[in-house]
């Protein structure tokens, strides 16, 4: 097995007296898709926010590429190569695709000593990157609001990949999408994984997870219930785990050795 690109060790996060995460450990390898499953309130959001630098863990360590990391803000995580695509917050619908694509990483060119936003470059790059993902834009100037939900997710993913993400965290990218758009996004995930990028795919839809996942980790009440490889677990078992692990005991056999 290849080396973990990111490793989270016994992460705990407390909000006042509430313990949101109590000792979650996780490894992600380059070029694999790890599905993080869990019901609402299981701690998925808190966990990925910790991974992407929004929250600082109360306890525990994060290793990135084998080195311990300490993220003070999302910017640090992005610089390190951890990009997060949030379901609702990925794109600004009123802004053009190119402006969204380069938000926070605007290309500039100097004219008479003044830095200008290089619109030409931005538009070209956006068009080509989107074509690579299989989306044909009318123009890079068109507002993101004119795109479908799946296309917006794809723009966000393409953006993260373009700016050198080594780990791509996707927060419920498919939960608000229709069947065809979901398939589009899943195809994009597959595309990204094949380029050697580690994907952390958060979802509570077992079928979506099964479609692209290499490994599956289930979170419940701030704890991991275990990690299973593709082919080692059935969707029904995953579903049961997410539901609260009533059938956990009967599953232990199949999970043994992978936890």
């Amino acid at each position, binding site marked *: 097995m290849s080396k973990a690109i990111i490793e989270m060790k016994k992460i705990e996060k407390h909000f006042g007296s509430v313990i949101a995460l109590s000792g979650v450990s996780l490894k992600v390898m380059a070029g694999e898709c790890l599905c993080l499953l869990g019901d609402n309130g299981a701690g998925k959001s808190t966990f990925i926010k910790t991974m*992407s630098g*929004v929250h600082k863990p109360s306890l525990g360590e994060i290793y990135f590429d084998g080195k311990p990391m300490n993220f003070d803000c*999302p*910017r640090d995580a*992005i610089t390190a190569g951890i990009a*997060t695509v*949030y379901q609702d*917050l*990925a*794109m*600004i*619908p*009123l*802004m053009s695709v190119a*402006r969204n694509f*380069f*938000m*926070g*990483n*605007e290309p*500039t060119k100097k004219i008479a000593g003044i*830095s*200008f*936003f290089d*619109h030409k470059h931005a538009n070209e790059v956006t068009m080509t990157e989107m*074509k690579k993902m*299989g*989306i*044909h834009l*009318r*123009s890079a*100037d068109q*507002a993101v*609001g*004119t*795109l479908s939900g799946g296309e917006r997710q794809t723009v966000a993913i393409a*953006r993260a990949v373009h700016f050198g993400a080594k780990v791509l965290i996707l927060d419920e990218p498919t939960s608000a999408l229709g*069947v*065809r758009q*979901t*398939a*589009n996004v*899943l*195809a994009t995930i597959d595309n990204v994984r094949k380029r050697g990028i580690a994907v952390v795919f958060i979802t509570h839809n077992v*079928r*979506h997870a*099964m*479609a692209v996942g290499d490994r599956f980790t289930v979170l419940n009440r701030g704890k991991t219930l275990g990690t299973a490889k593709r*082919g080692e*677990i*059935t*969707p*029904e078992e995953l579903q049961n785990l997410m539901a609260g692990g009533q059938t956990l005991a009967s599953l232990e056999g199949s999970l043994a050795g992978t936890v």
Partner: protein
Amino acid sequence: MIEQTASQSISNSTPDEPQATEKLDEPQATGKSDERVKTRSSFRQALIGPELGGICGTILVFVFFFLTASDSGMFSAAGVMNWSVVSAQFIIIAVGACLLMISGEFDLSVGSMIGFSGMSIALLAVTFGWPVWLAIITTFILCMAIGALIGWVVTKTGLPSFIVSLAFLFILRGLTIFAAIATTNKTIVGGIRVAAEGDWLAPLFGGKVFTGVFQWMGNQGWIDTFSGGLKKGQPVVEGIPMLMVWAFVLVLFAHFLLTKTKFGNWIFASGGNAQAALYVGVPVNKVKILMFMFTAFCACVFATSQVMEFGSAGADRGLLKEFEAIISVVIGGALLTGGYGSVIGAALGAIIFGVVQQGLFFAGVESSLFRVFLGTILLFSVILNTYIRRMITGEK
């Protein structure tokens, strides 16, 4: 079991894969027609921007006043200068309000800031006898510091800027009246023109440019000249006031900042969705604070020009100017909730506002009806702009 689900999901995605290839094939298959669509769309794009409403409105307003007030002196040199100066005033504060609104915030303290900065200059220069240039520079620094404070409070507390700047509307107005009464026992401080004589900085705000050209035009009889008094023989319009130069420069600056720079993208992003912008590393708070400072700067330019032109500062100057600025920006197509708008649009909105305000006087309309017109224009421009915006952004 697993296999079944896997095949299910594969069958789920299979219908899509041919579709994706279809999509990729599209440009090749329909290459020609696609080119044609593209040129048409770029023409449409040039036409349909946030400014469209402003452009239409400006044309409408001018046509209207050409029909109703052309014989009233509205389009004589002095008349044109009159509504141009008023429009320029609106432009100066609208530019600041526009950028701030696009970055997602409001500043209701603009009017009070105008009164405050004017009074600050007057008190420092006249009552305390400072050199005028020092009074102006100190006031600019003071105003921008207050702007930064408002921005800091807004970003730190997360309170709506509507409330925070409303507080500063009262604080600044109260401080202005208090300072004026406490130091001079009056609420209007005059004598600035005398103090500003020979000052190097004051003409930058109160001066006029191209005076030679206008004198020449006066001599040619193209524009009216004074028939008596000290200025006999001089043209009634002496030159382009610096106020208009400032308006022009500020519009250019803000337009380039917004559309052509990295920072401009951050302004849009901060207002469009602050969280999303934050997640990709845009320093949202810094952007917002800077925009509050820029708004304060614009208010200060407005006040300084006014004080230098008229030679006095009053504690009640700039009353309700914040709304006039916001109205101009909204007429110009910006979205009240931020993330969308245009400086050119705001400038056109300010021109519409200024021309209507002065034009109604020229047209001889009963002055109490001014607000009726203002309200009507505001309503229709917002309806039109919303419609245009939906066409552009696909917003529902």
